Each structure stands twice: as structure tokens, then as C-alpha cells.
């Protein structure tokens, strides 16, 4: 070892780079990307995005919902939205209650996330979700109307003093791993909340049961990537009832 160590080291490293380079960018690609030309293979090895010809787009048989959920989907409510929403929402009061709290086993909308309400309205309008009255009601709503109604209901206070009773059932706190059922609470608010998942506390039991059953039977199918259908169809009727009862505070 002497003062040329530095030089030697540099040379050695360069040599290694070359070896690695040759193996990684010339030799292996020839094998792994044999379907591509030299430069294409080289690009693939580098990680330049390219699509694998064999797997092109396929015909779209049916889609669940045409809403694309992003954080920008609804800007934070402008006061103007809330006001117009309030006037538009007058005709929703018969089922959803004057303060967004239903006496008719319709979902409570007070304090529901705006994105959730907006998406459902969009789906009602586009027919992705069907309901005798809601389809009718949503038909004439413009996109702005729907945002405003959503913002209005989101602005209302949730049912005061509502308490969940009893211990959460297994399906709510653990789900059922081996059936790929995640805990309800991991998306719907007990444990954590994910974008566009509705807040379920205090929703009417009958409504929750009906919707879960509809998901399970594919009657309702406006959940993106079948997220709820997949879960609901793995839930037992008992689990469905337990979850519904729990969130309705009747557990």
C-alpha cells in the first residue's frame, strides 16, 4: 500500500461500475427483455417507463362510478356554497330532516363529508346508483348544485349527544382477516377515516343494513373498484346486522 492508493481505489471503483454496468445494462437485458431491441432493452434496464405491449387496454364492460376521487374534488366549502345548498336542500328535508337528521330511515346527512354526499349525488344522476326518489331528485341538479348541497350538509352539526352503545362488534374493530374483511372502523371513522368513506355513526340501522345487503347482492354497485361489494359479500348476515346496529347506536 502506498501513496497511489487513491488512484488505485478510483480505478477499482470505476472498474466495478463498468462490470456492474455491463451486466446490468447489456448482458441481463438481452435475456430479460429479449422481446425488445438493444436500445429498448437498455432503456428498460434504466427504468424508462414503457408499456408492455401484450397487455393493452381491454374493452370496458361496466364501470362502477365515473367519479374520480381526489382531494381537489371539492375545494373547502365557500360560504356561498353552503347558502345555496341550504335553499336547494329544502326539498331534501322531507326524508333527511330539516337539520339533516332523518326520521325516515334515510341517511343522516348532517355533518357527513361533502365528498361523500357529492359522489352519491353524481352517481344517482349518472344512474350508477339507483333509487326511486334520489334518481329523480338528482336528475336536474347541476354539478354546482350538487357541490353546494354537499357543502351545506357537511356544514351542519352532527346529531348532538349521540353515543355509540356497547362494545364494537368484531367486524367493526378487527374485521375478519382470513376473509379479507378490514375493520369497518379503519375507513369509517372509529379507528381512522379514508377519503370518500362516509361517517357512519348514528346512521339508521335499517339504512345501513339495507345498503350492506345491496352491496353484497350487487344490487348497489357504485363503489369504486368494488371496495364495499367485496367486503359486504364476505360478511355474514349476522355481521351485517351487528355492524348496522352498532353504528346506529342500538348495539
Amino acid at each position: 500500500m502506498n501513496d497511489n492508493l487513491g488512484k488505485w481505489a478510483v480505478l477499482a471503483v470505476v472498474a466495478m461500475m463498468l462490470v456492474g454496468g455491463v451486466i446490468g445494462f447489456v448482458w441481463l437485458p438481452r435475456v430479460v427483455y429479449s422481446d425488445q431491441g438493444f436500445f429498448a432493452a437498455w432503456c428498460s434496464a434504466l427504468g424508462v417507463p414503457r408499456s408492455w405491449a401484450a397487455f393493452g387496454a381491454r374493452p370496458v364492460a361496466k364501470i362502477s362510478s365515473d367519479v374520480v376521487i381526489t382531494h381537489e374534488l371539492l375545494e373547502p366549502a365557500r360560504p356561498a356554497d353552503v347558502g345555496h345548498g341550504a335553499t336547494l336542500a329544502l326539498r331534501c328535508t322531507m326524508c333527511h330532516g330539516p337539520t339533516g337528521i332523518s326520521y325516515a330511515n334515510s341517511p343522516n346527512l348532517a355533518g357527513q363529508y361533502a365528498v361523500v354526499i357529492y359522489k352519491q349525488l353524481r352517481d344517482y344522476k349518472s344512474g350508477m346508483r339507483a333509487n326511486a326518489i334520489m334518481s329523480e331528485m338528482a336528475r336536474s341538479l347541476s354539478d354546482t348544485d350538487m357541490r353546494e348541497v354537499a357543502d351545506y350538509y357537511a356544514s351542519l352539526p352532527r346529531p348532538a349527544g349521540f353515543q355509540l352503545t356497547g362494545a364494537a362488534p368484531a367486524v367493526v374493530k378487527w374485521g375478519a382477516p382470513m376473509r379479507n374483511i378490514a375493520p369497518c372502523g379503519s375507513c369509517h371513522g372509529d379507528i381512522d377515516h379514508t377519503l370518500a368513506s362516509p361517517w357512519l355513526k348514528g346512521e339508521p340501522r335499517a339504512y345501513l343494513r339495507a345498503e350492506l345487503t345491496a352491496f353484497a347482492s350487487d344490487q348497489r354497485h357504485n363503489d369504486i373498484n368494488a371496495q364495499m361489494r367485496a367486503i359486504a359479500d364476505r360478511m355474514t348476515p349476522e355481521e351485517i346486522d351487528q355492524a348496522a346496529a352498532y353504528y346506529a347506536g342500538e348495539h
Partner: protein
Amino acid sequence: MMRNVSYRLMRKSALATAVLVALCIGASHAQQQPASAPSAFPGAQESLEQTVKRGEYLAQAGDCVACHTKHDGQPFAGGFPMPTPFGTLYSPNITPDAEYGIGKWSADDFYHMLHTGHRRDGSFIYPVMPFPAYTKVTRADSDAIFMYLRSVKPIPEPNRENGLRFPYDNRSLLLGWRELFFHEGEYRPDSKHNDEWNRGGYLVEGLGHCGTCHTAINKLGGNEDRKAYAGGLIPMQNWYAPSLTSNKEAGLGEWSLEEIVEFLRAGASQRGAVYGPMSEVVHNSLQYLSDADLRAMAVYLKDLPSRHETPPPGMLPGAAQLSAAVLAHGHAIYKAQCQSCHLGNGVGQPPGYPPLANNQSIEMQSAVNPIRMVLNGGYAPQTETNPRPYGMPPFAQILSDADIAAVVTYIRVSWGNHGQPVTTAEVNTLRSAPLLD
């Protein structure tokens, strides 16, 4: 057992009542009780029926039924929700039901509650119950009201748990509030004024609890004396209770006694019609008061000192918004929607179609009421003297914020009105104001 006590009481004549009054004077309020008190008020000598009758009258004057009856509920059975910034409270059942009502109460209990704002168990009452006003009620009147309440149909309606947020659900915290805003003590006639004035004062300050709405409510949910009757926004309901002082611009300064009496009795007058929460007051309470009492109230109100309720200049909405375009727009809307009833020069066709020109409701600093009238419309309450009221339709669903802002602005500045312009934002926020309290 209490029942028997009170029934015996009822069987006793007025003398007994007088004795009882005397007793409790001795008991607690000697220093507060004016010597002339009993004679200053009716009912020193009366039969049980008369007492109950008078009790009913006073209960109406106090408008007990308004809060102690829920929409589809039985009279006085309670359960009426009262939303506050601190949570929702539910009025209790005050029918003579032994379990849930005041069946087990004595006249003492009742007076004590009314007078000191303590529940029967000694804990504090939330000031949604206007005991700071009711404390002014005399023992005699309290007993009469109690007798009357004992005479109504008992309803076994359980009381509903209040939905107050922490920490407001702790009644003992009210101590601070009471220190600030509650001054216990019956009404003390002012010798500088005649009986009529004092009677009016007794009703306005006491049972009428006018100040509860017409005195601004501050952040702590209390009325400040220095702002007494100068008007204020009613929290949650989002109606503006106008000033009742003798102030020329905002108050009753320009109203004649007759106009005030007519307004309170009929719910509609040459000056305008009642609307919003006041409809309820007229419908359930004021229309039943005697001419003498209404006149007395009018006299007292007319005499309230002005609090010069003109807003500080800085607070005015910028006149910059007041463009010709807005006024033209407002004028167009007015012609299309309002003129047919309120006429081109805004003089209206009172009492059915109230005047808009020179009308405090229109001009007052807060534009809440005129905006809400346009948004929600309204019918004057049906009363003995106004059995077939006229009404104004809601425009919320056919006019945009801009339309409404323009037309309200137009009305507020036309025909010599000197109100301030309103913004579309104001209109918009009021769209979500609750229609039913």
C-alpha cells in the same frame, strides 16, 4: 303530600294567600319587598277560580307555553328543543304530573324557582329559562301562575336529557354567569312614575321578559344592562330583535302609543306587521293581554332611555358597493316582485301589506330581518283582532343572492329610507338560517 298542602292552599281564601305572602316576605325578601306591593297589583281579594283565571292570564303574559310545549306535543308537557351555542336544551314538563311534572311542587318551590333560578333540587337553572326576568314577578302572581299550572291536564311525559357540550353540562359553572347577569329581586315600582308606567315596567321587565331578546346577548350568553332594549341578534335563530328604546331612528321614538298597542295586540299595524319569533309572542301571549296592560307596556317602552343605537361609522358596510347597477337591478326586481303589494313608492297597503318606506325593520342597522323576510316570507300571526292575516311569499327559491341583495339594498335606501346596502354574502349566510326554532 305536597299535593294536599297546595290543595288546602287553594281552598283557602285570598286572606290565606296574603298571609302566605307576608310569611315569605318575612322569610326572605323584607328589604326588597316594597310596602305598596300588594296594593299595586290586582288580585289581593279573589276567589280560587279568579286566581286560576288570573294565573292563566299571567302565564300567557309570561308565554310559558311557547317553550314548555313541543311542536306536536301537549301543552306544558315540555320537551321543546332550544338550541344554543353551547348545545341543545329541552324544556321540562310543567304539567301537574306527579312523576315528571310539578305535581309534587309547592307554591313555595315554584316561587323559589321563579325568583332565584334554582331547581327544586337546589341546582342552578340554565338561563334559557328567563328567570333573570321572572325574578321580578311578585309572590302573589307567582302563586296564581302556580295555581293555574296545577289546574291544567297532567301529562306523564318524561323530561328529556339536555344535549350540552362539556363543560357547559355542569350546572354549577352557572355561578359565574349568575354573578354577572342575574340580579335577584321582585320588581320595585319607581315612585317617580305613575301606576300605569310601573305596571308596564312590571310586565316588560318581568313576565314579558322582552329584554331576553331585545337586549343584545353577549358571548357569555348574557344581557348587558347598558345595552338594555337596544336590540340585538337572537343567537341560533338568526333574527334581529329591534331596539325598543325611544331612539328616533331605530327605536319606538316615532311610534304612537296606539300604534304600539295595536302592533302588540293584532300583530299588524300601520307601521308594519310582526314576523319571525315575534309572531309567536303575539300569537301565544300578547294578543290575550288587556288593553290596560298593553297600554301600560307601551307607556313604559316609549319611556325607555335611548341608547343612541346608531352604529359607529367605521362599522358601516362600505358604500362602495352601492353602485348604480345594483340599484337599477334592485329596482327591476322590486317592480317585478314587490310593487304589486308594497306599491311603487313603498308606502305599502297597511296593515296587510306593511309599508317599506320609513320602517325601522327595513332601515335598521342590521339587515338580517329585511333579508330574511325576502328569503322566507311570512304570515302575520292570526289574532282576535287580525283573524285573516295577509302574508308574504318566500323568495329564496326563485331569487339569487345578487337579486335579493340588490332589492333589499334598493328598499333600504329608497323613499327617504337611510338604511345601509347589503351584500350578497349576508344574503347567502342567512339562507341556511333555521326556519323553525
